[in-house]
Every structure is written in structure tokens, then in C-alpha cells.
């Protein structure tokens, strides 16, 4: 079921199994039939850990979404609330319980807090007079969720906002805890590198927690050689750029959520022979995207311009395989052919799906609007006219293009110019408020706080230096047969990944100057290993680094890291962890303020 998690360098299925075990144990604690009331946000992340079948095996008969009022009728012994520790959710739960008919119901109530229980929430339940109604109040520690064979995500959407806007370090605490769990399963990570304020805090917490458990440290041979903690605000530029890998574009255009994407149904209509496809499906087509699907694993990280060729090559291989049947003469040959059929049919349907998706994306990437937008992005990244008001942005505002698109572009210009001149910034802001409404005042404010928009101070624009030293722009990016990570953005090499690459070789000492220009401290810590656990490396054996992006990572950055893992002489393999998978749109959205009642 989750075999793809065990194919990578590090078997992440261990983590998933540990999480499943804990879930089963909790469910068994509540003996008898049960109904789960879900905090809707959690269903996605939980889907990565356990399907409904697991719940069903443990007598979960009904599932509801948490909402005010009376609980739907269910003939079960236990009602279990799966919730994040948030006060507003406590009020809903309290409402559920007080509306329950006390005399007729002998149902047991339980709460499972994910990822941690909270005194504040329990206090709230007490104030509402329902705390005593719960038989079990427990926590389900779900920090790092295995997302794919080389990818872990906390699926913690608000992490960036909390850290950089609200100065709330809760997500960092969970991160540190998650890394401790990981070390308990995969051994102590001997070396920790980091860049950024949050990275420093997480490392401090980890070292402190290690002291807490000192002595009880596990005797597992370390799987990871090093950990790199990177703050998202060290590299604000990358997520703003439009991702140009296949997976990145799917995310940019349709949005990948907890590993699933919803696509327009028209292209996926089942065409049965002899039957006119009169009624087109109206429900969006939902597809799971991960490395379990062979073809997807092959093309996800390619630049979109190389996907077409890959698909047609695959098509030829598959049809050739089907042609084989004509050559099958003997019973044995036919039998062998038939035994391969299911696999071939799966490959064919996977091919059909991805051809459809590629067609959908192509319609967009070949449009003029897409091209114009990309041109402006690339101008900014190469430092062309970043200090003036950009006419393309002006036009987009005039045409009332989606606000997030505008904010992405303006932020990008600001980042690539190390801030905008007062006049320019004010002009953009005024245009935005006048076109999209005054209520976006607070959003602009937030972007300034996060450093995405900023007025230029007297200091020099240091972006060109950073760009040149780190080789962020590569003129001759090869999209078909890449030789550098810059292929993921057709020219732009993501800053975060350059830092990772340089750390591996030749080391950060070579770029001290640039590191000082980027926000936050950079550091290195060593964790003592118990004697006897020092790895004896085989000749030619690769080292494994866990790269943790605090505040989110894009699919294109992941593609770039996978590319580095595959480069023959890199000597390094990467496993990626993050608070949340993001793209420019979801990221900017998380920073927007929406007053409860919109004006107009």
C-alpha cells in the first residue's frame, strides 16, 4: 500500500508504520464501535498515514466533519474528536456535547489532539463545562508525515506566517520534536548545519532535547550523515518564480493537496467504443501523485519542455509491448504475455492520464499571458530594470488580473532589487488598493513585515552580487538533458538549493561573504555519537543529508535536489523535509489578511 516509501535511500515506511501503530493503539483504547468527528483540516494529512480500511478494522463505523450543533445520529459506543489544538474548535466541540441528549445517550466521548494536547484547549473545555465528559484526552504526535520515498512534510500550512509575521515559534517546537522522533528511528544525526534565525532556534531546541534524553539515546547506526536546516526567508525569491518542472506546473496551475490533485474532468472522459460520450463527468478528476506510479516518478522532475518527448517515447515502448502478442506463438509465450498484461494496462492508463494532463498544461504554457509573465519574471531575476515601475505589472493591475499574481510579481521585483524605491513601492501599493480595494492594506502590510516587499534603504542592492557568486542565473540551461539545477526554472537556479549544493562541495567557507548578506546566522553543530556507532563508509558510498526547509519548499526545489542526488559524482543523496509543500500562490495566500467582513 505504501511500498513507494521504502524504495528511497532511507526507508520512510518505518516512520509511517510507527505512526500507524500509535493510531491503532489509541483506537483500541476506546473499546467498542466508534465514530470519528474530524477537524476537516486533518483528513488530508491523515490520508497519508492511514486509509479508511485501517480505521474500519478498529471498529470505526462512521465519520463526520466537525461542525456546530448536534452530532449526527450514529449507533456507536464511542465518539472520538480528532482535532488540532485550537480554541475555536473547542467551542464547536463544547457545542456538540451540550446539544447531546444526556438522558438517552450512553456514548463515551474522547478527544485526540493532533499533534499535541494543549492546556489552553483543555482549560477552554473546562470553562465550557464539558471537560468532564471525556473519557480519554490524548495526543497523537504527528509531526513529520512521510509524503513520498524521499520526502517528509509536516503539512503545517501556517508555519511561515506564524514564524515571520506573528513571532510564534510553535511550529519550530513541533519541528524539533519531529526531528527527535526521526532520530529515535533512524539514529542520531552527527552533523547539523543551518542558516537563518528559525534554523538556529530549531537546532538549539534539538540539542536541548537531546540532553533531556541523554543516556537513553538509541543504539541505532545513523542513517543520515547530516542535517541542513534552512529558513525560508533566506531564500524568498525561489517560491515567487513560476515552477517549470512537470510536477511544479501541476501544482502551480491546479494545486496539489496532500498528494492529490483535482483536474478538470473533460479530458478524462471515459471513451467507450460504440458509445457516444454524451454526458461528460462534472466532478473533477482526482488523482494521487507519487512515486508509486512508475511513469510519474520518471517525468515529474523534468522540465516541462522535456515531458512531451518522454511521453511519446513511453508510448512507443508500451505499444511495442502490446504488439508482442502477435509474436507469442507457443502456449508458454502467451501465458507470459498475459501475466504481464495488468502491469501493461496500468502503464497504458497512466500514460493516458499524463498525456491528458500535459495537454492541459500545454494549453496554458503556450498562451501569451503565460509567456509574458515568465519574461518579466526572468527579467527581474537577471536584474533588468528592477528599479522602475514595470509596465507589464501596471497593465495586469489595470486589467484586474488575480491579485495574487500581482503580489507575486511585485514581491519578486522587490526581492531582486533588495527593496524598491519609495516612489515605486508607493505607486504599486496605491494602484493595488485602488483597483482591488482598501481592505488589502493589511495584506500589503504583512508582505512588508515578511520582507517580501520593502522600501529600499540606503544600502546598496546586493542581489547582483548574490546572483553572480551563487550562479543563480545560467544562460544556457539545458532543459532536455540537464547538467545543472537551473533547468527547473529554465535558467534560474534556486538559491536554497545552491546553498545546499555548495555546502556539500566545496563548503560554505567559500561563500562567507554572501552568507552574511542573507538574513540570519549560519552555523554548524556536532552531535556526539555513542562509541561504536561511527559509520565505516564503504568506498564510493554516498553520504545522506536531510534538508529541512522551515516555512515551506516548492516542487521545483525538490526536483533540483533529486537532480543533485542523481548526479554521478556528487557523492551525496538528499532526503527532503519541510513544514509544508508550497508554491508562490499558496504561500502568498497564507500571508494575506482577510478581514471577517469584506468591504463592498
Amino acid at each position, binding site marked *: 500500500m505504501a511500498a513507494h516509501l521504502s524504495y528511497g535511500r532511507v526507508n520512510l515506511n518505518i516512520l509511517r508504520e510507527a505512526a500507524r501503530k500509535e493510531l491503532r493503539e489509541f483506537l483500541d483504547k476506546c473499546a467498542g464501535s466508534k465514530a470519528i468527528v474530524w477537524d476537516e483540516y486533518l483528513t488530508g494529512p491523515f490520508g497519508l498515514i492511514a486509509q479508511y480500511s485501517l480505521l474500519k478494522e478498529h471498529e470505526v463505523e462512521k465519520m463526520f466533519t466537525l461542525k456546530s450543533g448536534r452530532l449526527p445520529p450514529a449507533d456507536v459506543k464511542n465518539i472520538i474528536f480528532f482535532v488540532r489544538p485550537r480554541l475555536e474548535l473547542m467551542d464547536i466541540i463544547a457545542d456538540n456535547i451540550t446539544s447531546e441528549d444526556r438522558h438517552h445517550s450512553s456514548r463515551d466521548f474522547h478527544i485526540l489532539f493532533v499533534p499535541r494536547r494543549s492546556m489552553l484547549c483543555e482549560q477552554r473545555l473546562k470553562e465550557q463545562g464539558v471537560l468532564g465528559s471525556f473519557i480519554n484526552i490524548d495526543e497523537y504526535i504527528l509531526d513529520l508525515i512521510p509524503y513520498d520515498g524521499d520526502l517528509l512534510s509536516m503539512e503545517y500550512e501556517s508555519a511561515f506566517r506564524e514564524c515571520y509575521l506573528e513571532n510564534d515559534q510553535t511550529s519550530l517546537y513541533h519541528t524539533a520534536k519531529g526531528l527527535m522522533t526521526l532520530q529515535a528511528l533512524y539514529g542520531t544525526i552527527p552533523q547539523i548545519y543551518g542558516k537563518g534565525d528559525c534554523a538556529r532556534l530549531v537546532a538549539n531546541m534539538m540539542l536541548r532535547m537531546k540532553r533531556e534524553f541523554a543516556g*537513553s539515546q538509541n543504539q541505532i547506526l545513523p542513517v543520515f550523515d547530516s542535517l541542513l536546516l534552512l529558513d525560508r526567508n533566506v531564500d524568498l525569491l525561489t517560491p515567487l518564480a513560476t515552477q517549470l518542472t512537470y510536477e511544479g506546473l501541476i501544482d502551480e496551475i491546479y494545486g496539489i493537496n496532500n498528494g492529490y490533485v483535482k483536474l478538470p474532468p473533460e479530458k478524462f472522459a471515459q471513451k467507450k467504443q460504440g458509445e457516444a460520450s454524451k454526458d461528460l463527468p462534472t466532478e473533477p478528476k482526482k488523482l494521487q501523485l507519487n512515486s508509486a506510479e512508475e511513469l510519474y516518478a520518471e517525468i515529474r522532475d523534468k522540465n516541462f519542455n522535456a515531458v512531451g518527448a518522454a511521453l511519446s517515447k513511453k508510448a512507443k515502448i508500451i505499444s511495442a509491448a502490446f504488439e508482442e502478442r502477435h509474436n507469442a506463438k507457443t502456449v508458454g509465450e502467451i501465458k507470459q504475455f498475459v501475466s504481464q498484461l495488468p502491469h501493461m494496462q496500468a502503464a497504458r492508463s497512466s500514460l493516458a492520464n499524463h498525456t491528458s494532463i500535459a495537454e492541459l498544461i500545454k494549453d496554458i504554457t503556450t498562451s501569451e499571458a503565460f509567456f509574458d509573465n515568465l519574461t518579466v519574471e526572468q527579467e527581474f531575476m537577471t536584474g533588468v530594470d528592477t528599479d522602475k515601475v514595470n509596465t507589464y505589472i501596471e497593465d495586469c493591475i489595470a486589467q484586474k488580473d488575480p491579485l495574487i499574481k500581482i503580489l507575486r510579481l511585485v514581491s519578486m521585483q522587490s526581492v531582486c532589487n533588495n527593496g524598491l524605491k519609495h516612489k515605486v513601492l508607493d505607486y504599486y501599493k496605491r494602484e493595488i488598493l485602488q483597483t482591488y480595494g482598501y481592505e488589502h492594506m493589511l495584506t500589503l502590510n504583512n508582505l512588508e513585515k515578511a520582507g517580501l516587499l520593502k522600501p529600499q534603504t540606503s544600502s546598496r542592492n546586493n542581489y547582483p552580487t548574490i546572483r553572480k557568486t551563487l550562479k543563480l542565473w545560467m544562460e544556457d540551461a539545458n532543459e532536455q538533458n540537464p547538467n545543472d539545477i537551473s533547468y527547473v526554472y529554465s535558467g534560474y537556479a534556486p538559491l536554497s538549493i545552491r546553498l545546499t549544493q555548495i555546502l556539500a562541495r566545496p563548503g560554505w567557507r567559500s561563500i562567507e561573504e554572501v552568507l552574511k548578506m542573507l538574513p540570519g546566522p549560519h552555523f554548524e553543530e556536532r552531535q556526539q555519537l555513542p562509541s561504536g556507532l561511527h559509520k565505516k563508509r564503504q568506498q564510493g558510498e554516498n553520504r545522506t543529508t536531510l534538508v529541512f526547509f522551515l516555512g515551506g519548499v516548492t516542487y521545483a526545489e525538490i526536483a533540483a535536489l533529486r537532480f543533485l542526488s542523481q548526479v554521478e559524482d556528487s557523492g551525496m543523496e538528499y532526503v527532503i523535509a519541510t513544514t509544508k509543500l508550497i508554491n508562490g500562490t499558496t504561500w502568498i495566500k497564507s500571508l494575506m489578511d482577510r478581514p471577517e467582513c469584506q468591504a463592498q
Partner: protein
Amino acid sequence: MAFITASWNPLGEAFYSKTELYEMSWTLRDGLRDSLVAAAPYGGPILLREPHRRSPSSRPRLEIYSASGVAIASFPSGPVVHLGWTVCDELLCIQEDGTVLIYDLFGSFKRHFSMQEVVQSQVLEAKVFHSPYGTGIAIVTGSFRFTLATNIDDLKLRRLPEVPLQGKPSCWVVLTQDRQTKVLLSNGPELFILDNTSCTAVCPPGLSPQAGSIVHMSMSFTYKYLALFTDTGHLWMGFSNLQEKLSEVHTKKTTIPKQMVCRRPKSQQPSVALMWDRLLLVVGVCNDTIQYCQDIFKIASMAPGALLLEAHREYESSQKADEYLREIKEQSMLGEAVRQCVEAAGHEYDTNTQKSLMRAASFGKCFLTDFSPDHFVTTCRELRVLNAVRDSAVGLPLTHTLVYRQFYPLAIEICRYLKIPDYQGVSRVLKHWASCKVQQKDLADEAIARAVCVKVGDSPGVSYSDIAAKAYECGRTELAIKLQLLDFEARSGEQVPLLLKMKRSQLALSKAVESGDTDLSVYTVVTYLKNEMNRGDFFMTLRNQPVALSLYRQFCKLQEQETLKDLYNQDDDHQELANYYVTASYREKRLEGRLALLQSAVDEYNKAKNEFAVKATEDEMRLLRFQRKLDDEKGAGLLGLYWWLKLKSLAEKEEWEELEKFSKSKKSPIGYLAFVEVCIKCNNKYEAKKYVSKVTPEQKVKAHLAIDLEGAADAAIERRNDSEMGAVLFRCSASDRLLIDRLNRARATATKK
């Protein structure tokens, strides 16, 4: 010399032997006959209460002895019903009125609590039990009501429901099942399970009907097995969930045993030991019994281990060794034999026997090529230590509890020798040592802090918080703070509650922030401080901790908007204050209110020198005022929307009378053409006509057009409007000849003028 194996008696597949651990060194005047006795688990100390004397004036004394009978302490007590020990060697005295007194191992009083919220009646009987939750107490009162506390360190009294009893329960036990603590009790022939909510009659499966009433019961230490003894001498043994019987034996004893113990030795089958005045009986699941009043069974074992032992003995004296060895080897059981010998040595109390067994094992080992020595070595080590501890001068059959008796150096040496990981061994000992050290009243704070610091240092897993808590308990607040300030404590979170208790709020807050655990620490501390301090001090305290302050702000954003404003005000954070007003303005429905809030925002933006925001906000205010003016003039806006909605819904429900009333209720802000059109849409020309007359002159033609052409033509001609006439003409078809002519004529005259 007899076979050593001979003194072990078989019981099914298991073997038992009876050993006197210590020759008790105590001298008791009256024997144990009428005293209350409580022995602590794992070979801990033994507690005695002297029998009641006739004279009520003299209070009985309690005496504590080590397992070998060395007196440890003695002190007077009240009317005790039951005595027991907690898991950490604290003494519990349960008195008749339900008061429970807690003493430490050395007889000094620690604290007390009551098992009855209101003293209702005398405690008849009490039991101390141990579970994963800690040490618990159960009592039954004179009115036959049971009350439970599952953990005396976190006292929650649970009064169990009433039981339909005929007099006093004949016997009862506490059991823990499915994380619930229940009482199993018998009353005459009946057996009940009593839990939080109900009392259920149960029946042990397979108990012979002629067995009679249950008069004694015993639960195994893990609550897995249960033994029941009936007045006819039947002994039933089975699982405590009463689902399955393991065995039933007729002991032919009709007197109630003085003691009955049900247990399952390591990796063996469960068994029950019963004690009468002069008889000790061991019963296993195989329905066998062993009686220890006399030695009956003396069977030499032929297990490989036993053979190996004999082989070795022969090797030392004669040549028969070879014979024994060959026999073992033929069964290719030598490995097993060595293992058995080592294991047996581990279970043996007599040092000489241990030696012979280990020698035999080492002898057998020589004939094996690939036998791992680990087990052998560990056992050797353990035995050496155990023997040292069992020495009657120390009087302890087991290791861990050493620390409770304050034999620290020995304990540490043992831990090191046994290679117990630090966090389980040395650190624990050090913690106890330090906790004891801080209670030494004759030493100065400084000296103690230094001593603790030197000895404990940053040993992993030693909780300075616990040590400090001890110091605070003994009234040494200053010392406690000194200890907290040493930056050795890794779990900053754990220091917080104590620091709060000691009213060191600043320190508590900074430790809480350090831990990073936002909820458990920061919110806990912040909410605590909020209630404890006046507002000004509270804000000042927060100000020094930016992280705590931001968390509190987040909390206020959700819960207490007004406080949020105060917070910004105090910090002179004009930018945020302005943003606060902007946010608030969106919640305000009335225009005046909204404008006022925006004006406040402008003032604050001004103070923050944010010119752009000032201007943008002023523009917004101007825009709002302008919109309002437009609304007033055109009468559109919300009111219009309301009329539209009402009109449509009434028409759709075909409530025509209501609609007419509504149309007359006020002058319609949306005019009356809308009424006409909506009626037509609902296919009601008749109703539509009612509103035509009310339509403004400019809309007359349009309104008529919706109903009939003729009316429209009349209206258009009357208004002499060329374009309107044109519009009507456009709608005419060939059959409307007359109408077309009329209109054309009217048009011609109109244009002429």
C-alpha cells in the same frame, strides 16, 4: 551428597522449592499472631503493628524492620485498619475514619489525606493495590459502600455504586482491567464485579456447583490471574476476566486459609500458594499440589542441566563424568544444559549451590565451540552483586530499592558494576542522594548547592527540578531557586511549575520560553501571571519576553480584542494599533462607526509616520462618504436589495395579496416596473396590470410592453415619443395590421411637429 535438584519439587512442568531467605534477627514478644503485618513488594521492608493492648490509653506502636528483621524505625500510631506500602517504599496507615497517613521508610510523617469526602461511617476494611497508575487504596465502609483511589499521588476519590449485599462481603479484591479499576467481591454464594457505573453479578466458568461460597480470593500481581477459595475447600484458578478456568482443585481443607497468594513466576505457569497455621500448599494449573509441611516428593530430575551438574561433580571426583556427558551429548542438549545451569544459578539463593551450578556451566561450556559467553558473564556479575546485597547486614533481597535505604555509594558501585545504563542507574541514585542532601538542615544553602553541583553535574537524566522541588518542600525556597538557576536542567519546561509555586514568575517565564513548548509552558505561565498580577506588572513582565508577548497577542487576537489594543498602546506600537483599527472597522456595520475607526487608524498611522497608509486610509474614508451620498440620492443600496428580495420571494410563493400590501407599504426604492416584470415572469398578467399605473411615465411603455401591445401603443402615442413608438412597432407582427397603421400615423404627425 544428595542431588541438589532433589529439593526442588515438580508441579506440572515447573519446579518449586521453599527457601528461608533470612533467619529473622528480630525478637518479638508476642509473635506475629495478632499483629498487623505489611511487607513491601520486591523484598522491601516489613511493617508491624503491635497487637491492641487492653488499656485504651496506650497507643499502639508501629515498627519497621528490614526483610532480614533488622529494626529500622518505631513510632506510635492511631487506630489503624490496614497497613501498606507504596511503590516507592512509603508507608500507608489507613485509619478507621478513612484518614490515610503517609510516612517514609524511616518513620517520619510526610502527609495525610482522607478516603472519605465526608466522614460517613467507619472504614470496615481497606486494601492497598498497585497498578500502572501508581499505588491505590480501596476501602469499604460500615454501610458496605466501596470507595477507590487509583493513585494516591493524584488523588481522585471514586465512590462506587451500591451493592445489593446480605451483610458484610465475605471477601474482595481490587483488579485493574482495560484501564479500569474494579472491585471483585463475594457475598455468600454470589460473586459481583463492581465498576464505576454498575454492579454486575458474575460466575467463574467451570466452578463446580457443589463448591459452595467463596471465602477467600487472591489476584496475581499483574492482575491477570485470579484464585478463589470456597468454604468446601475447592480452589478455583483462572483468568481474572473470568472468561477461562485454568484449574480446580479440591484441597479438602474447609478452614479459611490465613493467606493465599496467586502469582505467575517468570516464564512459568501460574500457581497459588495457600497458608494455614501449619501448612503451606502450592497448587499449579495441572491440578497438582505440593505440601510443605513435610517433604514428600523427592524425585531426581533428569533434565540436561541436572545431568550436566552431576557430570561436573563426578568430574571433580571420579570418572563417571564421561558417562553423564555422553548422555547429554547424545541428546545434543549440551547447549541447553549449560543454559539451564546458568539460569538455575540465577534463581538460586544458596551461594554454594550457585557456585556448583556456575562451575558446571563453565565445565560444559568447554565442550561447546560456539556458545556465546554473554549470558554466563552477566549472570556471574549479577550474582556477585546480589550476594553482596543479600548479606544480612544490609538485609535486602533486591537491588533497586537500595537507594530508599540511603546506601548510596553501594548503589552507585552496583550500577557501575552491572553496567546499567546511566539514566537507569547512577543518575537515579544521584537524584535520590541529592534529594536527601537538600533536606539536611545543618548545611548552608550555598554548601548544598555546591555539593549537588559537583556530584551531580550534568549527569544525564537527573532532574534538577525534582531536587529543587524537594528543597522547596522542606521550606528551603532560596536553595530551590539556587538549584534552578544552575543551568544544568535540560527540561526547562519541568522547572516552570515549581518556579511559579515559588512566585519567581520572571524566571518561570524565561524558562518556559526557553523550552520552546508554546502551549504547555508559555500559555500556562502567561495565563497564570495574568490572574496573579495586576495588569501593569503583567504587561511589563511580558515586555521583557518578546516571544511570550507575541504569543499572548495571538491569544488576544482570537479572544480579547480590547486587551490587544492595550498591549499595543503600552508599547507605543502605532503601526500595529492603526492596523488594529482597520481590522476593527470591517466588523463595524454602521458607516459612522466605521469612519470613526478609520479616523483613529489615520491618527495612528500619522504617529507611525506611515504617510502612504495615512493617505490611502483617508482616500478610503472619502470613498465611503461618497458612496453613502450616492446611496442616499438614488435610494439604492441595501434597502433596494431588500425590496428586490422580498418582491421576488412573495411572487414566487404566489402570495399576491401580500405583495400588493407590500407595494403600498412605502414608496418603493426600486420603482414599480420591477413589480410588473416580476409578476410577468411568474406568468400573472392580472397582477402585473395592478402596478402599471404606478410606474413612472418614462417607464410606462416598457411596462405595457410586458403585458400587452395595445396598451404599449396607447402609451407611446400619448407620450408622442418616436423611439418608444419604434420599439412597439418592432414588437408588432404582421397580424397587428391596425396597430401598425395607428403607430405609423402617430409617428408621422409627431415628426411633423
